[in-house]
């Protein structure tokens, strides 16, 4: 197993390991709020500028003008120790930018799908994406004031989730709540890895 130490030049300060978790869900569901609640600084924003060669899924033949689109991602950093830095990335909401999601999902520990019970269908595309990719995910129901309270098993049934996918309540504004969601995700991801390893070994 690679512990990544051999690449460090002698005498240089060791660079930490960086890892990431994705925060997905519909527009306005609180993705950036959750990133900000648990990160050490306010969320930063980074942009990818896409030209027609990058978009790929769109048929742009015959379009004379060069088309560029900007996809923005909000993210935050949590320095967990001297040698471990966690980044949380809010996924861009536009469904047509799946290839940006592919880049984000590559190597991610897992994903949190934030759900709003008033607009539950908004998180379907995220769930479909992570199910299709085999990325471990949990569904966190953001408890907006004024939203009707559903039982978690009702949400699970409405989303047609596999029974093993954790569904939890959260308050995306609260640091402790966001931390608990992330820990639930990581524990779920570890269980999933173990189960897959056992299945592969049989």
């Amino acid at each position: 197993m690679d512990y990544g130490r051999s690449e460090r030049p002698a005498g240089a300060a060791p660079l930490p390991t960086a890892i990431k978790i994705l925060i997905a869900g519909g527009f306005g569901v609180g993705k950036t709020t959750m990133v900000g609640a648990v990160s050490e600084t306010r969320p930063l924003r980074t942009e990818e500028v896409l030209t027609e060669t990058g978009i790929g899924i769109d048929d742009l033949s015959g379009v004379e003008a060069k088309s560029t689109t900007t996809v923005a991602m909000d993210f935050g950093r949590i320095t967990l120790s001297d040698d471990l830095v966690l980044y949380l990335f809010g996924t861009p909401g536009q469904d047509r930018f799946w290839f940006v999601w592919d880049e984000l999902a590559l190597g991610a520990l897992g994903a949190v799908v934030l759900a709003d019970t008033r607009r539950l269908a908004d998180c379907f595309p995220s769930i479909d994406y992570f199910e299709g990719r085999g990325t471990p995910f949990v569904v966190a129901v953001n408890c907006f004031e004024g939203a009707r309270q559903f039982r978690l098993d009702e949400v699970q049934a409405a989303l047609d989730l596999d029974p093993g996918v954790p569904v939890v309540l959260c308050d995306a504004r609260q640091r402790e709540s966001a931390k608990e969601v992330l820990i639930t995700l990581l524990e779920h991801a570890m269980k999933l890895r173990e189960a897959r390893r056992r299945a592969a070994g049989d």
Partner: protein
Amino acid sequence: MTGRGESTEQEWVDDHAGPVVRPYAVTGGRARPVTGTFDLISLVTATRAEVGSESGLGPEHVAIVGLCQRILSVAEIAAHLDLPVGTVRVLLGDLAARSLVQVREPRATPAGLPDEHVFEAVINGLRAL
């Protein structure tokens, strides 16, 4: 236009940030770095305290070396400089080719995922926050 020192929201854009220029102008029209892949969470640190413009580098290169006196991810560099990630990748490639930055790609197993110990370390780290 906002007045000088008025907005804390924009605190990372200082008076030296200069005018917004088209990303391709910053890289001289290049779309890809000369070396390296630079994941969004690749970590970068400068190997020198500063570089002068005499080395043929642009102000954005110099700014990256200045930022990377502390360890930053590619995404953070892009956010602080207010440049698209693709542009920052090209600039980092120039710096890496001159050994002015050290880069650590995210650790992953051949399956594309970090190993077991990373999961445990993250859980413990989050609990300790």
